[in-house]
């Protein structure tokens, strides 16, 4: 059970505006945001940070690559709530379920391009503690991505630095949709939602 209470629809009251972007994409208000609503200005500004990274007008990289990066990052950060969410979001932006499950073995899977593999390797290193990113990782990224695209990649990884800590500290309860998706698509992986009320 979430360690801080997720606010109900009634308790959210006037706060629903902040969720508009998120609930439009997801179709529901995630519990991570229902908890953050205890301090609404944090929720509102974090939504702005997410928009700055994900709005098409602010993006150079395809949404499918960004969601895969957020998945690899959450996996290295060890947050199974975020892993379920970024997996189902990857599905929603059109990535095949086989490829989503193959993020667990991106180094050897033939479903990824070299450019994708470089970004996922970087995400994994940057989300470790201690941080494992090297100058060589940057040099490899530069073979495939421009400087502004690299900034975008680090932005996604850093946003999930916030979300991995938030949700794994709060033990945020997973909602029906990501549980269903992870239960099906991640069945062959070691994904485990127990801390987040799933299974």
């Amino acid at each position, binding site marked *: 059970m979430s*360690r*801080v*209470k997720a606010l109900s629809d009634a308790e959210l009251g006037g706060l629903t505006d902040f969720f508009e972007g998120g609930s439009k994409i997801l179709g529901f208000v995630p519990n991570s945001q229902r*908890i*953050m609503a*205890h*301090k609404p*200005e*944090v929720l*509102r*500004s*974090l939504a*702005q*940070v997410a*928009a*700055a*990274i994900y709005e098409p007008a*602010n993006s150079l990289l395809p949404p499918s690559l960004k969601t895969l990066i957020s998945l690899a990052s959450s996996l*290295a*950060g*060890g*947050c199974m709530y975020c892993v379920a969410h970024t997996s189902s979001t990857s599905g929603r932006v059109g990535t095949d379920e086989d490829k989503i499950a193959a993020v667990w073995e991106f180094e050897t899977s033939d479903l990824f391009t070299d450019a994708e593999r470089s970004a996922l390797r970087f995400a994994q290193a*940057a*989300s*470790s*503690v*201690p*941080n494992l*990113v090297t*100058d060589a990782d*940057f040099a490899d990224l530069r073979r495939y991505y421009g*400087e*502004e695209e*690299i*900034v*975008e990649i*680090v*932005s996604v*990884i*850093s*946003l*999930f*630095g*916030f*979300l*991995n*800590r*938030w949700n*794994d*500290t*709060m033990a945020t309860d997973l909602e029906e949709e990501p549980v269903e998706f992870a239960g099906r698509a991640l069945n062959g992986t070691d994904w485990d939602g127990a801390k987040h009320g799933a299974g």
Partner: protein
Amino acid sequence: MSRVKPLTDAELTEYEDIMAPSKERLGFIPNSQRVMARKPELLKAFNELGKAVNNQTDGSIPAPLKYMIANAASLSAGCMYCVAHTGGGTARTGTDAEKIAAIWEFETSDLFSESERSALRFAQAAAAVPNMATDADFADLRKHFTEYQIVEIVAVISMFGFLNRWNDTMATALEEEPIEFAEKNLASKGWTRGKHVDAAE
């Protein structure tokens, strides 16, 4: 050397309004923001997040404690850029340098209250990978803090989840003022600049 080039003052002229709050607070524009300015919409939104997390309301934990939590989280995650900055930030809230240095040994130092120790222990656990925060840590926090204050504590730790990854990935070069603070007060505890050096050095 920062792995992505920080923008110079000349390159930043059109973002002066976004930079104004940190320039006023710190007396200089930190390299983390000069790098983030490559994506100005992110910098603008992130500064709003910083204001929101630091926003002091009637029920808030004290501002110095927010900075000490940020410092303990950054230390746990190993980002020495953030450790130097949050150390200097804590000092600006009126905390003695001796106490800031004692965060490296908060469990045994008598400079901390039980409630501060509970919050710092929690920050250390929540910033570890894998996350080490337990139900028992929450129970201990609840002895000292309200639900709202616990949300504030996790918000600080999480904002530094962003910044620890950002600055330790970018190897952001440290600026003069935080270097001076950290070398004077934290070097004896084990702080080093590590990767956060300038190209010219």
